[in-house]
């Protein structure tokens, strides 16, 4: 398998766990995996990305523009910011919930994500996920990271099956959070499956 997956969002949203789960699940399936993370100053409320590259053909740690099969976006503007990485026939999964810049209350640009979502829909194959209602039963938007993985599996675009993702989750996520994580993953899967059928 050769697959490039870009994960993007805002510092603190849990993108790193999502990339770790994909990378280790793919490794367990015998794939060669490379990935790269944003670390440092940008983690504080800034834009963050993880590049996950599955397959022997990946030399560079970062995905070249126009090469990502899949973009998993935790925030609409971050999806657009990273859209240049997407293959013309690639797919974007994106949360509908905007994260205002931390400086928004001072400068008030009126950013609310709608323009970004419209742009995405006009540009590429995408599945917009209502992260708010998806995460509501679990009481925290922190579960979106596993939910979006579930959606990618459900839509059949991750290249990994539910079994191997769930196994990796059991291994990486502390016992007291695992139940909610599995439920969030399955809720995401349903959304993905519904999209896949369409």
């Amino acid at each position, binding site marked *: 398998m050769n697959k490039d997956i870009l994960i993007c969002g*805002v510092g603190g949203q849990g993108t790193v766990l999502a990339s770790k789960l994909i*990378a*280790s699940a793919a*490794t367990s399936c015998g794939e*060669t*995996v*490379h*990935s*790269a*993370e*944003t*670390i*440092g*100053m*940008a983690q*504080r*409320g*800034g*834009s963050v990305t993880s590049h996950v590259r599955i397959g022997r*053909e*990946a*030399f*560079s*740690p*970062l*995905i*070249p*523009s*126009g*090469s990502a099969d899949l973009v998993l976006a935790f925030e609409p*503007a971050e999806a*657009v*910011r990273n*859209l*240049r*990485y*997407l*293959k*013309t026939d690639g797919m974007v999964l994106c949360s509908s919930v905007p994260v*205002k*810049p*931390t*400086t*928004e*209350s*001072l400068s*008030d*640009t009126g*950013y609310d994500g709608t*323009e*970004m979502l419209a*742009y995405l829909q006009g*540009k*590429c194959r995408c599945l917009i996920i209502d992260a708010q209602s998806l995460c509501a039963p679990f009481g925290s*938007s922190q579960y979106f990271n596993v939910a979006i993985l579930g959606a990618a599996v459900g839509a059949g675009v991750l290249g990994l099956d539910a079994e191997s993702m769930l196994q990796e989750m059991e291994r990486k996520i502390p016992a007291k959070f695992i139940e909610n994580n599995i439920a969030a993953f399955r809720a995401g899967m349903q959304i993905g499956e519904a999209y896949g059928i369409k």
Partner: protein
Amino acid sequence: MKREYVMGNGAIALGALAAGVNVVSGYPGTPSSEIIETISKYPQQGLHLEWSVNEKAAMEVAASAAYAGARTLVTMKQVGLNVASDPLMSLAYVGVKGGMVIVAADDPGPISSQTEQDTRMFAQYCRIPVFDPSSPEEAYRMIQDAFVYSEKYHTPVLFRPTTRICHAYASIEVPEQFGVHTYEGFVKDSGRWVIFPRLSYANHAMIEKRNPQIGKDFSSYAPNHFTGKGPKAVFASGVSYAYAKEYLKQYPDIRLCQIATPHPFPEQLALACLEGVEEVLCIEELSPYVETQLLQLIGAHQLSVRVYGKLTGHAASSGENSADSVAQALSGFLGTAPADAGLDLSDMPALPLRPPVLCAGCPHRASFYAVKKAMQGKKSYFCGDIGCYTLGNAMPLDMVDTCLCMGAGITMAQGLHWVDPQASCFAFVGDSTFFASGMTGVVNALYNEADMTLCVLDNSTTAMTGHQPHPGTGRNMMGNVVDKISIENTLAGMGVKKILTVDPLNLDAAVTAVQECAAEPGVKAIIFQSPCIAISKPTGKMQISEKCIQCKKCIRETGCPALITIDGKVSIDESLCTGCGLCSQICPVGAIQ
């Protein structure tokens, strides 16, 4: 053997462990910090591990251990090498017995550094070997080779990964268990270990004779290699080699040469690669190092080869390379198709900017705010320093007038005092930075009778680089609980007469302390003590009541990211608020509780 999926820094750490390293020292700095953190997860009998107080100390600890035959590793970021350059320059003359590898991580971009300096140039300046890995997997093997070469030539060697190597992940095969290297111990020999002009002279001559020898040796070192044929060649170094390979996978016949040991330059290999070549493109980050080496070589051998790169404008002279920028340079040079650019995004809407800010509830915000309040309307200069608190420069705080390098705030406040004695001069320094390079500046102020107020922002950790312990925290990297070194006692011992310790989250007390210090002549210090929110439990959440008159003073004055507006109304984002209470002390009507 077992497989581990690790970060490049983890691969470097595991490689050093596989080489049986005995002593590891360093100072945190992005992108190098995780090397020592990884090693701390593999405690070994006979392995000493420390966060040193700064890079110079780290270098010296490792150097003498290597005199004794131990294998030693020193880690730092590129600007840390400036701090450690004093011992390193001399050490290059003296040499070592045990293998000594100095990891100095470069940061093209720069992404989180002050400079775009190039450690390969530093190696050339010091006349010592340098290794430049192109992937985490290669870094794992190469650091083991670095110890071998260090011992073979009795010289410290540099190892310089860049951010994209340090923070990239790959899976590597490592031994189930590590053992440590056995060594002879220190053998007294003042003719060898005591640097005197005579020794330096003799060793300088030896080094100049030795280096071409190492260059020859490196010419047959496996990672230095080339593939392909034809009249055009691409030379690449570090992660740029990986980017070049990525683009050239569609053109496997193009001549591509990796320079994995930039200094001493593997001349014989380069000459072999240049045979029949008419044009060369150099792909590298930071300085045009390989490019200049090739120009020299081509000149010395009177070859007729054109060299393109940074010096000719065929590659960007500053900033970080990417798979895209390298693909573009290569397609221009080779006349091949440009890489697939993906979707047409020329109509992309304007994106919101996300500048980094101090976290919600960060005690630094309160400290800066207290000084700002206390000095309102009075002429003051605020000299900042390196750490999270450099972000105090952002609006609305706007409390960092200068920032240069580690510890500089303290001495720069003195310089401003001498040219403008009427102004109140403040220096802000973090606790870790205070120990790393702030103390000498305080002595300088006392001795030279400067007027200044030192503000130590003591949050009990090295926050910026990922919360490493330091001498004030009472923990060290051997996992031991040790006596905390008190900043207050340190200052008092130096002779600072007025030292006030306050909780910055108690706004009135903090403002009063600042006013009291500013009113007095001489060197005064305020220690703002409150732990980093990332290592302490939040005290609760604040809420805004209906008393709020929507004046937005809380937002305008603090800029705390937890203070937001929803439909124009001020509110608190409960997922971010730590209940620090700064805003509630600012609200004119007491609406925040």
